[in-house]
Structure formats: structure tokens, C-alpha cells
């Protein structure tokens, strides 16, 4: 099926096809449309999901946690402050090993309050034990949400999954996308039949103990092992998904990286802009390339190191600040991934696009210019700068 849908509608449509048992619903721009669409599906009898209109995102995640623990497949959607309000219970979801699926429509965090896109919300939740998969466009937003279900629910994983798309840029822009047939989706995601759950008659279950030091660490290690195991499961699911959709996905996408000497590493919709810039530079004979990270948790460390091994200079583009005074979170991960390479490329970090600040192909071309210079001179200059801000001299 070919359709013209916004990113939000695409995810809502995925939810309709999944027909989850439970959804927690609370509005926040720019994810609000997702629960709105689902409310209409419920009203029209197109799904028989138990749709719980909670009084906050904290409760929305709490409802999903409890429902999933009780044996139900649960989903929800949020953005920005909503995700931040869930912060405490995101850990509870992951540590209880509950494969909830959450659509995070990325938006800047307050303050100051700002409704536009950056990645500070989901990056703030990167260490909560959730799998994180980011979309570049509407098609990926739809596909990722569907793939999240069999990834999270696999017995080797049993972790919640956050699928992220860029607020407004992806969530509100209407694009042509390919939808799957519902029966194909149902077969792909399978029935949710957990082994143990609160409502199981034969065997009462207790969830969420007070855990003392002789056990807590073992439980955390199990959770960490599950996150490691998720990598293989993600690749299994993407392979299965390719068979039914014809669309290929990996842990990240390499764009013109075969012989690239200068490369960018980034996440999300800006990949579209970056690809256009790469194409233009390639026409001029510059060996430019791009790595678009799709799976941020688990972080594809070895794979990324391999992909960047042949490059001379790399710019990581972080769409969130991080306030570490040492670069953004994607930079920290990438730099750590490259540490074990015998010969490492030069590496810089560009924080960009905060609160919806635009980035265009010229900005990216300019950045490649800087990389070319670094590759030749070996002079990195400032390691970590901000792109496109007006108050300081633009360094990128």
C-alpha cells in the first residue's frame, strides 16, 4: 500500500495494525496526534485497545508498566517534558524487563520551553535501559515502531523500546510511504504470550521487589546482558523485516562510505540534508560520506569503529547539548568506539539544531571543508563547537 502520511499518522497506523492491549495517552506537542489518531480508531471500533487517558506522562508510563507486567502488550507516545517526567519509571520499566513500546517524538527540553526538534529528551533517557532506535523519515518511523515489538519481546531481550523521530520535521511532514498489510504485520509481530505475568491464574507473580545488595547487582548485570543481546536480535528482526517489506536496515546506515575519507556521524532527519551535501561534494571529487546512527542503544561500537576505520577526519553531529563540557552524547560514544582502532581518524564534535535551529546543505558543506583542512594539516582546532548560533563567531 502506498500512502501519504505524516510521521505521527504513520506511527498511529502502526499502532492500529498492532492493536495493542493497552495504551497510555497524554498530550504533548509534537506527539499529541498519535494518541488522538488511536482514540479515533478506538471510537470507530477499528482496534479494541484499552485506551487509558491518564493525568500525566508519569502515570502513562506507570500504566504501561503495570499493564505489561499483568500480561498485556502496551504502547504509548510522548515528547520532551513528557519523557522527562517519565524518567524515574523508565528505569522501572527496563529493570522489570517489560517490553513496552514508546514512540518518542523528539523535542527540545525546557527551559526555556521550546516545542521544536532536538534530541535532548531521548538523549536524557539514553541510560535508562531502553533500546533506542531513531528514524530519518516517516517510512522509518513506521517501520521502526513495527520492528520494536518483536525486538523488545524476544526472550533473550525483554527490554522496552523507544522509537524516536524528529518532532515536526518528521512527525508533521507528510510523505509518501509504503504501508504493510495488517495480516502481514500481525504475523510479523506475533501474539504476545509472556511466560509469567500478574494475571496468570496458575502462578501468582510478584513484581518490583525491594532489592538488597546481595541481589541488586546480579539483576543489573542481567539487564546489561539483555542490552548486549539486543544487538543480535535487532539484526535478526531487520532481516526478517526485509523479507516482508523489501526494506533493508542495519544498526546504522552507511552512505557513500566505501572509500570515504571525510565523514559525518549523526542521527535522525538531518541525514537527508547531509546526504544531499555528500552527493554534491562527491560530484566535486571529494570523498565525503555519512554514517546515520539508527540504533543508539545498544550502541554499535565495534561496527561503527569498523565503518570509520578508513577515514581521515570525522565530525560527529550532536543534536543535543549534554552539558558535559566535553561534547555531546553521540560524540562521547563515537570517540570511545574509535579508541581501540590502531589508526584513528581526527574527530570533532558539532552540536547543532538545538530547539529547532535549521541546518542546511551549505552548513554541512562548510563542515566538510573544515574536515578536509583537518585531514591535511592535522590541526583540529576547537574539538567541540556549536553550529549556527548567532552570538559567537561561527566556527563550524
Amino acid at each position, binding site marked *: 500500500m502506498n500512502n501519504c502520511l505524516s510521521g505521527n499518522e504513520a506511527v498511529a497506523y502502526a499502532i492500529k495494525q498492532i492493536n495493542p492491549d*493497552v495504551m497510555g495517552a497524554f498530550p504533548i506537542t509534537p506527539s499529541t496526534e498519535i494518541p488522538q489518531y488511536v482514540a479515533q480508531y478506538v471510537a470507530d471500533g477499528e482496534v479494541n485497545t484499552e485506551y487509558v*487517558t491518564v493525568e500525566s506522562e508519569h502515570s502513562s508510563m*506507570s500504566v*504501561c508498566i503495570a499493564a505489561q507486567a499483568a500480561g498485556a502488550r502496551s504502547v504509548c507516545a510522548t515528547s520532551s517534558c513528557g519523557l522527562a517526567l517519565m524518567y524515574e519509571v523508565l528505569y522501572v520499566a527496563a529493570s522489570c524487563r517489560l517490553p513496552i513500546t514508546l514512540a518518542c517524538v523528539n523535542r527540545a527540553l525546557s527551559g526555556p520551553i521550546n516545542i521544536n526538534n532536538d534530541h535532548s529528551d531521548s538523549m536524557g533517557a539514553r541510560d535508562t535501559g531502553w533500546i533506542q532506535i531513531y528514524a530519518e523519515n516517516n517510512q522509518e518511523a513506521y517501520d521502526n515502531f513495527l520492528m520494536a515489538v518483536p525486538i523488545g519481546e524476544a526472550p533473550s531481550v525483554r527490554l522496552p523500546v523507544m522509537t524516536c523521530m524528529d518532532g515536526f520535521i518528521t512527525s508533521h511532514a507528510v510523505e509518501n510511504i509504503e504501508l504493510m498489510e495488517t495480516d502481514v504485520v500481525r504475523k510479523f509481530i506475533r501474539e504476545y504470550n509472556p511466560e509469567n505475568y*500478574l494475571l496468570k491464574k496458575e502462578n501468582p507473580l510478584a513484581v518490583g521487589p525491594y532489592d538488597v545488595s546481595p541481589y541488586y547487582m546480579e539483576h543489573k548485570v542481567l539487564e546489561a546482558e539483555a542490552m548486549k543481546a539486543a544487538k543480535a536480535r535487532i539484526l535478526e528482526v531487520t532481516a526478517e523485516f526485509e523479507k516482508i517489506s523489501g526494506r533493508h536496515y542495519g544498526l546504522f546506515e552507511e552512505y557513500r562510505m566505501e572509500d570515504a575519507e571525510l565523514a559525518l556521524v549523526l542521527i535522525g532527519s538531518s541525514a537527508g540534508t547531509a546526504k544531499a551535501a555528500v552527493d554534491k561534494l562527491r560530484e566535486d571529487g571529494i570523498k565525503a560520506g555519512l554514517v546515520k546512527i539508527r540504533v543508539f542503544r545498544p550502541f554499535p561500537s565495534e561496527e561503527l569503529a569498523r565503518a570509520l576505520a578508513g577515514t581521515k577526519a570525522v565530525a560527529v553531529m550532536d543534536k543535543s547539548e549534554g552539558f558535559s563540557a566535553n561534547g555531546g552524547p553521540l560524540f562521547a560514544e563515537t570517540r570511545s568506539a574509535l579508541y581501540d582502532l590502531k589508526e584513528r581518524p581526527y574527530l570533532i564534535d558539532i552540536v547543532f539544531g538545538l530547539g529547532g535551529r535549521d541546518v542546511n546543505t551549505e552548513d554541512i558543506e562548510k563542515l566538510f571543508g573544515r574536515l578536509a583542512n583537518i585531514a591535511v594539516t592535522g590541526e583540529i582546532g576547537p574539538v567541540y563547537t556549536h553550529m549556527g548560533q548567532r552570538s559567537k563567531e561561527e566556527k563550524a
Partner: protein
Amino acid sequence: MSTVYNLKREAEKPARLTGGHRLCAGCGAGIVVSGVLRALDKEDRAVVVNATSCLEVSTFMYPYTAYMDSYIHSAFENSAATCSGVIAAYNALKRRGKVEGTVKFITFGGDGGTYDIGLQSLSGAMERGHDMVYVCYDNEAYMNTGIQRSSSTPHFARTTTTPVGSVGQGKKQNKKDLTEILVAHNIPYIAQTAPIGNFKDLHTKSYKAIYTKGPCFLNVLSPCPRGWDYPTEKLAEVAMLAVDTCVWPLYEVEEGVWRLTYIPKKKLPVEDFLRLQGRFRHMFQKGNEWMIEEAQAYVDQKWERLLERTGA
């Protein structure tokens, strides 16, 4: 089943909260919880939801659970939302033929988890109308973290954040009336009770709350020997005095109709209740008589209002 209360028959039911939990000796919480759960019909299953609290850390310390039924704890402020989620799952799975039999949903939160940090979650769940019982076991302070004041702590009570000193005289504010806040939600059944006598009041109200359709709320006074500073063996006496002094009146509001369920034969002076407890000791020092007078005046005024409301 006979609806006439019979302690012996009730006590013979298999306990749903087993012994071996780690609540302090003389703690009211264990008695309240086992009393409420005992009201479940034998053949019915339950899912117990619990907010972070003394009760939670004492009854489900990994790998031991004291509950015979399924149980979930998630966090401090979200127990009502958690119960909503379990019920949502029940409705969904029932509709899809994946769960059989009757399951009842009972949430326990302390006063901190109910009057304070969990009030929003509770209000939301009550307004949405989930078929649950929310039980606040009210020991009038944050006991699990070492006796800090909550909005349920009564006027003048000494806690670790309302200490008594040369200037400080315990808590400055009156106790929040949570039961009335719940009445304002227009839910089918609300009651205030306490573990006294042969537990008939606690049992009857628990049974009604569990078997009334829709959201129901019980506020149960739950004495804490550590926080209230009284000898452990005086649990029953302290609870009885709270009721006989009208500090903690027993009443219910069923479909909007207020009813007193216990009228003391002789309304005792508030100081009889206060005197037993170290948290009020400073009120009995010379020069502090006004505190006892104020406490008495507050109780009298609340009691008069309750008499009017209940038409007693």
C-alpha cells in the same frame, strides 16, 4: 455466604498476607493489610498494588514475598496509576479471552504516598473510574525514611522534620482531610476506619469497598509505635483512643450518603489519646496547655461538622 460478621470464620480463612514479613513488632500496617485482604472471598483472586513505603520494603524483599496473591510495586507516587494499568490489562485480556475468573484489585499506599506525592495519581484513577479499592494506611508521617512529616501529620506532632526545640513546637499545620477530598470525587464508596476491637468495622468496610463496582477508597488509621513513640503492646489501645476521642471518626459515604459507623459511648478528651504518645509529649509541658486546648477545639469542630453531615 452469610453477611453477618464472624471473626472466627474470617480468621480461619487462609491468610493472604503471610507471617515472616519484616514490619516492626506492633506495627499497624500488617494488621490493616491482612484485615483488608481477609475480606476477599476465598475463591476470588487479587492483584495487590503497593506504593514505596514501610509496607513495601517489609513485605517484598527479594526473593521473598509475603503475599499469596500477585503483587506489584513500581514507585512511590504512582500506585493508583499502576493499579489502573493492571486493570486495563485485565479488561483487555478478558475481552480477548485470555484471562478467566474474577480478579480484584487492591492498592495500598502510606499517607506520604497518598496524601502527598501520589495524590495526583490517585485523583486521576478515581476520576477515570477503574474498578479498584485504594487503601491508605495512614500512620501520619513518612515512616520508611525515618519519621518525616506529611500533610497527614497532625498539628503539634513531633517528627524529624518538625522537631521540638526552643522555638519549634512540632508540626505547625493541621492534618489534611483526605477522606473529604475523596468524597469530592463522587466515587461510589469512601470510608474511614481503623483496626479496632474485633475488626468488624475494618472488615465490613473492606468487603463493601472490594465488592462495590467502581473506584472505592478506604482511609485506615495505622498506628506506628516507632513514629508515634508508644510501647508496642499499646497498639489496640492507641487505635481505640483515636476513635473514642473522635480524633479519627469512623464513617462511610456510600453513593453520596454520609453515615457514622461508630459513635463513642462517651466522647473522651483528646489528651487521653495524646498522652500515650511521645510525639505529643511537649504538649504536656507546663505553659503548653494551649496546645491541648487547640487540639481539642479542632477535633470538636470537625466532629460537629461530621455529625451534621451524617445527620447523627
